[in-house]
């Protein structure tokens, strides 16, 4: 590694403040809502104040630029005293009637967790007292298949974790609740974490390419990145089919991509392994050559054969590295966002000669620093990692490090503008550009796209700063 970098990356760990200033994470119910939206025919339902559903819808809709319905029990002040079960029951009945969903995923909020609502019990009582509908068309409380909607419950108080925890908790809760043990299947369950619809499509293509029968859990790719339709459908098509999610417990293997969560949050992959004996593999998000190679090895280990096109994509990516290295060497970046994404990006940036001098996440796994060094040993001692961080800390580090680049979501824009450091937008939320759903981060192909964006951002900066105005860079 370049010696010159050592001085530039020696930044002190920022001072911890009492307040969180411009937070670098969102709340658990947001993550849970997003995960639940990735199951077929499902309506996410937040048990609490309606503001939670409204704020979260506004946030996710602005990112995906797609409809995103989240129901709410619209708890009022009296229910904080007498309990919210009747609002929950009414709300579920109304969603069932109007939407005819296959599943309603109920996530709790700060309010219902603080008053100690027994949501699991309430849902069991609804399930228990619901008669089999004689005429599905007459009784609105059924899905188009004639069955009453499955009811799933996940506990998501914002004070207990991050949006990523909420996401993973909802996936685990759903997989656990739907599980129907039985004869083993040949399927490989892929648990992709919080990635973009374009990433999910690409993952599907990759695993398909290995000739492996597989299932993505959950899968928001169609429901949150849909085309125009002849007729608007209230329940957008797509998502992980519930019957297949129910069979996940019989799969031959589960592969978790990412999965850095706060202590206490269970991953679906762990649940499948502990409770049902499914072999669980855990990998970092496949960004860059090293981390994507690791996915390839895992899939080969599961009996798949890498397709030729994947090999070709890898070759093109390495070729692009060669073409671009002169623009990248000895550059530095500050990264912020979700732990999984920051980890994958940091390992990749190190691979192309850009030092991820500081990595700030709102996550609380406490494992990011160790994972970074494990996966990219060359970063040992050269990167400042801040867990449970905020943008005050990002700003402090950017001022101290003067990086060439910021890599993160839209929330970094004010900083990018104020300190005049270019921002490459990745992850969630992206509210100031189109194409968030189409942004690919994963695999050789996703890396290729990131590589071009990062390299071009640096070239553009150098070109703009040139007094001469070179048109050949």
């Amino acid at each position: 590694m370049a010696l010159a970098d050592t001085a530039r990356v020696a930044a002190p760990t920022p001072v911890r403040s009492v307040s969180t200033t411009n937070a670098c994470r969102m709340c658990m119910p947001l993550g849970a809502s997003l995960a639940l939206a990735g199951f077929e025919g499902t309506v996410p339902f937040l048990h609490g104040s309606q503001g939670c559903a409204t704020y979260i819808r506004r946030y996710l809709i602005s990112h995906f630029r797609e409809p995103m319905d989240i129901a709410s029990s619209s708890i009022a002040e009296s229910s904080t005293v007498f309990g919210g079960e009747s609002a929950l029951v009414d709300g579920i009945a109304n969603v069932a009637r109007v939407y005819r969903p296959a599943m309603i995923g109920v996530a709790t909020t700060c309010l219902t967790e603080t008053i100690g609502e027994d949501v699991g019990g309430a849902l069991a009582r609804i399930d228990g007292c619901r008669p089999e509908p004689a005429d599905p068309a007459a009784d609105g409380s059924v899905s188009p298949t004639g069955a009453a909607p499955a009811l799933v419950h996940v506990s998501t108080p914002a004070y207990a974790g991050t949006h990523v925890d909420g996401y993973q908790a909802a996936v685990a809760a759903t997989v656990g609740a739907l599980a129907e043990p039985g004869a083993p299947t040949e399927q490989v369950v892929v648990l992709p974490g919080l990635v973009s619809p374009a990433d999910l499509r690409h993952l599907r293509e990759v695993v398909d390419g290995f000739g492996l029968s597989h299932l993505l859990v959950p899968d928001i790719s169609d429901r949150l990145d849909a085309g125009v339709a002849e007729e608007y459908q209230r329940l957008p098509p797509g998502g992980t089919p519930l019957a297949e999610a129910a069979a996940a417990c019989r799969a031959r293997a589960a592969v978790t991509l990412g999965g850095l969560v706060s202590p206490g949050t269970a991953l679906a992959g762990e649940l499948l392994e502990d409770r049902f004996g499914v072999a669980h593999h855990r990998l970092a998000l496949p960004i860059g050559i090293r981390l994507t190679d690791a996915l390839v090895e895992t899939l080969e280990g599961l009996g798949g054969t890498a397709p030729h096109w994947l090999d070709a994509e890898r070759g093109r990516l390495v070729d692009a590295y060669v073409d671009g290295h002169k623009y990248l060497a000895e550059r530095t970046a500050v990264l912020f966002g979700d732990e999984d994404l920051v980890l994958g990006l940091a390992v990749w940036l190190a691979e192309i000669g850009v030092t991820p001098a500081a990595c700030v996440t709102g996550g609380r796994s406490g494992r990011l620093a160790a994972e970074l060094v494990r996966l990219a040993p060359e970063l040992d001692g050269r990167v400042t990692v801040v867990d449970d961080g905020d943008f005050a800390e990002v700003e402090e580090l950017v001022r101290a490090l003067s990086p060439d680049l910021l890599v993160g979501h839209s929330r970094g824009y004010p900083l990018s503008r104020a300190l005049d450091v270019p921002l490459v937008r990745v992850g969630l939320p992206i509210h100031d550009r189109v194409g968030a759903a189409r942004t690919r981060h994963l695999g050789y192909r996703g890396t290729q796209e990131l590589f071009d964006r990062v390299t071009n951002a640096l070239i553009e900066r150098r070109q703009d700063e040139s007094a001469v105005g070179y048109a050949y860079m």
Partner: protein
Amino acid sequence: MNPDPMTELDQISAAQLAVANRELGPELAVPLPRDTPDGAALATALVESYPPKVGRKRSKHIRVNDPSTIPTIEANSRTVPGIITQRGCCYAGCKGVVLGPVTDIVHIVHGPVGCSYYSWMTRRNQAIVPEGEANYLPYTFTTDMTENEIIFGGEKKLLAAIREAYELLHPKAIAVFATCPVGLIGDDVHAVAAQAREELGINVFGFSCEGYKGVSQSAGHHIANNGLFKHVVGTEQLPDELKVNPIRVNLLGEYNIGGDAFELERVFARCGIELVSTFSGNAQYSDLARSADANLNLVMCHRSINYMAEMMETKYGIPWLKVNFIGAEATAKSLRKIARYFDDAVLIDRVEQVIAEELAALEPVRAEVLSRVGGKPVMLYVGGSRAHHYQSLFADIGMPVVAAGYEFAHRDDYEGSVVMPTITVDADSKNIEELTVAADPDAYEQRKSPDEIAELAERGVRLGEYDGMMAQMAKGAMVVDDISHAELERLIAEYQPAVVCSGIKDKYVIEKMGVPCKQLHNYDSGGPYAGFKGAINFYTEIDRMVNAQVWRLVTPPWATAPAPVG
């Protein structure tokens, strides 16, 4: 103030007055297209998919309009659970809407992380802060409560956070906002604020705006009004050099989304109207603190701020006038009312001159856009005043409003302020404090006598009251309160509007149906739309949206082509 207000008015000729009265009267609706579906049948159809009990409840929120005998509508009642409402929460109304735009108050959200994050610069309220002065708009501070504080209480952390903010930034004021768990665990934000106020010597005040209070963000507006009135308004004096011009107003309920307040500031400056404070777009703490020295309160979004207008009138003697600066004709009318109120010949002339110049510049655009969009139907489902105000803007370009409704309004927003005494207070509203206000023995100064107020009313300047949406809407148009997703979809299918004005939560549902949707909460990426230049922006924006060729691509040619024969 003019010592003898009638003198100037008396000098105006009868002919001028007749014109003024006509100009100041209620606005006329664009007639509904001839093929508009029958409202009564549609009103019934709208609630068909609900369970019967929910259907009965929702029916009370749905009315077919008749401006001559304004119907009674149910509003501001608790949302039906599971209905997928557009509504937000009390905290959103208090912090997000009313207090949030003030640039130099440090806003600390006491609660878990999400609430502060989601209200962080998402409303597109703008500010231009004088060089060297604080602007905390880009920041959102939260105590980021964890399980530990939920169990053992968060007051200590809150106090530490306030102290920290003070040490770092030395703001003039710090406001604290309570979120759901705070009220439930019994943290007293007011006591902590009082302690900090004492200790730090700056104004620190709290808001009990937990998300579950009331039935929508409307409760938060009221709580915000109360807090500002109690802790800020009247705490500073307007410097003497700023008291030279008696034509001094506050602009209440203007939050500077997309720069609306900038345009109104420009228009006011041209007319010679001194703006003491806006509540609360592009406003600083001291503006609000000095606002009791204005001589007229102009009320834009009455839903979010009428409490403030009423309380300031009682305590300080400042009358209030409902205005609408959305739409060129509406803006002109509002300016004329202000001029009549101040009864100042120079102002009256200047206002007329400004209106003439601004309308002359705007007219070619208006006429051209009207030629392309006139007669095309519009639906508006948004807010607590915008679904009304924007009807004036659409009237400018000849677009009929076939259906409209609010998200969090009360009955008076539909039926007019005249119904306020008849509104029953239900359990959900009862918990929102009503301040007891009396005339201030020192600061009260009657600006207009009852006789003068009556006189002004006769001349078309009605102080202290407003018409609701229904008075301006055409007979037969559909009014739906707190509309649900399913109802909105049905209305779109039936009315086939050329454009729907709504918010981000509906936007992409509407656009998936092949209909353009203009967000009127945060204006998408556009604005300003207020005043004259804003009106031009809106005309061209609607023209662009309605006539964009993209809508022609939605259905592929093979989907409509006849099946091949043979």
